[in-house]
């Protein structure tokens, strides 16, 4: 429960804000009187949608235009129409399951790598995040400290994350040092395919899980306590209380976590790039790196191709998310 002391500090700090909000209420009431509730709906939506439209939708639209035009020019008018050429180039394959048979072999390698990465990373991370959130939500002392512990990596920039873990995983890093203490064979974490993939998954979980833990923590707080009390009276073992009470009631927030985790996993890039550079070989080459290299890093940029690739990637995501949301709706209906 929020303590009184904090309320007073908050009250002092928020006094001007409150005054402002009260002042806003006067025109708002007037507006509500004229426009009714539908008018208020648009009022609440418009600021966000304006900014959103300007800085998300318009660029998205430009992006679509990019994907069907060629050249390195920035202005749409300078770009020549190439139709589906970029898409053809990306999709041209003898066998879509064998990247080597594709014209853009790297795109397909990246695509399959991404799919593999997403499934591994998202599933492991969500389990990890849920467990951590449950534990942090439990009766533990120094809760703020523990939250900070798990949230800390989120504060780091991807470059630093990559750097730290490179240090730990490199040939003579801490991990091998520990293995050495146990007389075990050193492992080339970053130069052997399986290990490097595991490392990439692990590091990206490390870097992001705090983010999801926090969302889940907030979600857990929204579950009325008395339900747990009822469950306890019903003799519910903790595990079952989790499956039958916590999970269903956490669902709206868990959905946020799943969708965001999915999206971010598909967009995996920075820290893995710093950590492994996409290697060994191409085993950690993911779509965003591919797009980044095509669109930016290579000196002869090809924004059109990058846009086409990103649109393909986005459509995969949209399908995945729609499936997710469909699932929820079905659940809601039930």
């Amino acid at each position, binding site marked *: 429960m929020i303590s009184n002391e904090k309320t007073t500090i908050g009250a002092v700090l928020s006094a001007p804000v409150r005054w402002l909000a009260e002042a806003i209420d006067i025109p708002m009431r007037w507006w509500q009187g004229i426009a009714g509730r539908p008018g208020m709906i648009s009022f609440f939506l418009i600021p966000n949608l304006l900014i959103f439209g300007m800085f998300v939708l318009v660029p998205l639209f430009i992006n679509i235009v990019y994907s069907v035009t060629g050249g390195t020019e920035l202005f749409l008018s300078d770009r020549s129409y190439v139709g589906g050429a970029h898409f053809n180039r990306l999709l041209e394959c003898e066998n879509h399951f064998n990247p080597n048979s594709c014209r853009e072999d790297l795109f397909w390698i990246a695509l399959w790598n991404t799919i593999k990465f997403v499934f591994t990373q998202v599933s492991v991370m969500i389990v990890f995040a849920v467990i951590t959130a449950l534990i942090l939500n439990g009766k533990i002392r120094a809760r703020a400290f523990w939250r900070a512990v798990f949230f800390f990596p989120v504060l780091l920039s991807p470059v630093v994350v990559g750097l730290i873990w490179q240090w730990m995983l490199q040939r003579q890093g801490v991990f091998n040092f520990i293995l050495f203490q146990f007389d075990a064979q050193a492992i080339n974490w970053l130069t052997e395919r399986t290990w490097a993939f595991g490392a990439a998954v692990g590091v990206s979980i490390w870097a992001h899980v705090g983010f999801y833990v926090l969302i889940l923590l907030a979600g857990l707080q929204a579950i009325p306590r008395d339900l747990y009390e009822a469950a306890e009276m019903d003799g519910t073992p903790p595990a079952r209380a989790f499956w039958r009470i916590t999970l269903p009631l956490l669902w709206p927030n868990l959905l946020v976590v799943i969708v965001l985790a999915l999206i971010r996993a598909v967009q995996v890039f920075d820290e893995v790039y710093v950590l492994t550079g996409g290697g060994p070989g191409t085993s950690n080459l993911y779509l*965003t790196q591919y797009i980044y290299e095509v669109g930016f890093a290579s000196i002869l940029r090809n924004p059109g191709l990058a846009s086409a690739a990103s649109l393909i990637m986005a459509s995969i995501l949209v399908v995945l998310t729609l499936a997710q949301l469909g699932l929820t709706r079905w659940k809601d209906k039930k």
Partner: protein
Amino acid sequence: MKAITFLTRRRGGDTWHWTDVVTFAWLGFGLIIMFGPAIWLVMSSFKSPAQLAEFPPTILPYVSETVEVPVKGTMKELPLYTVTTEGEAPRELAEVRRVGIIANMVDPADPETVIKVNINDRTPVRRVGLALENYAKPLRDFNFGLYLWNSVFVTGVATIITLITNSMAAFALSKYDFRGRNAVLLLIVATLMIPISVNIVPLYSVVSSLGLLNSLWGVILPTVATPTGVFLLRQYMLTIPDELLEAARMDKASEWQIYWRIILPLTAPALAVLAIFSVVWRWNDFLWPLIVLSRKELFTLQVGLNTFAGELNVQWHFILAMTVATMIPVVLVFVFLQRYITAGIAGTGLK
């Protein structure tokens, strides 16, 4: 030990419930894996460039011990080494110079006699010490105050706008039924999918045509409409009982007041989460400000910090030090805001 008893408390009173074991194991694991690197980071930020490059790395920062020894009449600072040659007790000698694999060393007590030592027989004498220069130099040369202000401005304004616009939109999308609601929602979620890096070029042209290049607003505005925030808040608001809104309507509250007096306070945990995220994101934002801001008086800390990354060389010692320094404000913000992620209360007003 005190700290341990403080940090530990068990579920079943004096007995160990299995959940206690899991909890402790998990927290311990978290402490090492999640937090261990933080310690390394802080320690490393105090290491000299040479020590940073060193294999195998040490946890603590060290500096080499030196002594003042008269060499050919003048006093010189010489590095100290521990020398262990076979059959002799280890001794501390100062190295005058090294030629190939042989080092010419002297006993500081007897600087006249030169002793030749194989370099494999000596190890430097080091003590824990901080390379404060890593911090001092950038803070001195680098317009830290200005960058800090720019960062604070960008972060603060962007966070406030994000919280307000996103919560308003989330309110509309969660508590009203209207036609097109699902379409808007879908659009928002769908646009989450486009990777930022791809949208950057088009976004650049939009911002450029709005004349927002080299303006902090050009950094702020494109980031505040995050679909993430809307989605996060909306899902959280779904868990607030509608009956409270109804009560407020009976109390003659306007829709704005329902938003402001009922929804916002009850969404506090999610708002706190979003505020933390927004602060962390905006504070650490790098790619986008880098593009919009090319004038140093507008640089944010992250952009400024990045100037230590050259083409061929990255000056990690400065980057690490400045990473630690720039992290402090966000850590404080986190510590301040995380307390709002407590005790959800929405349900307790109902029978």
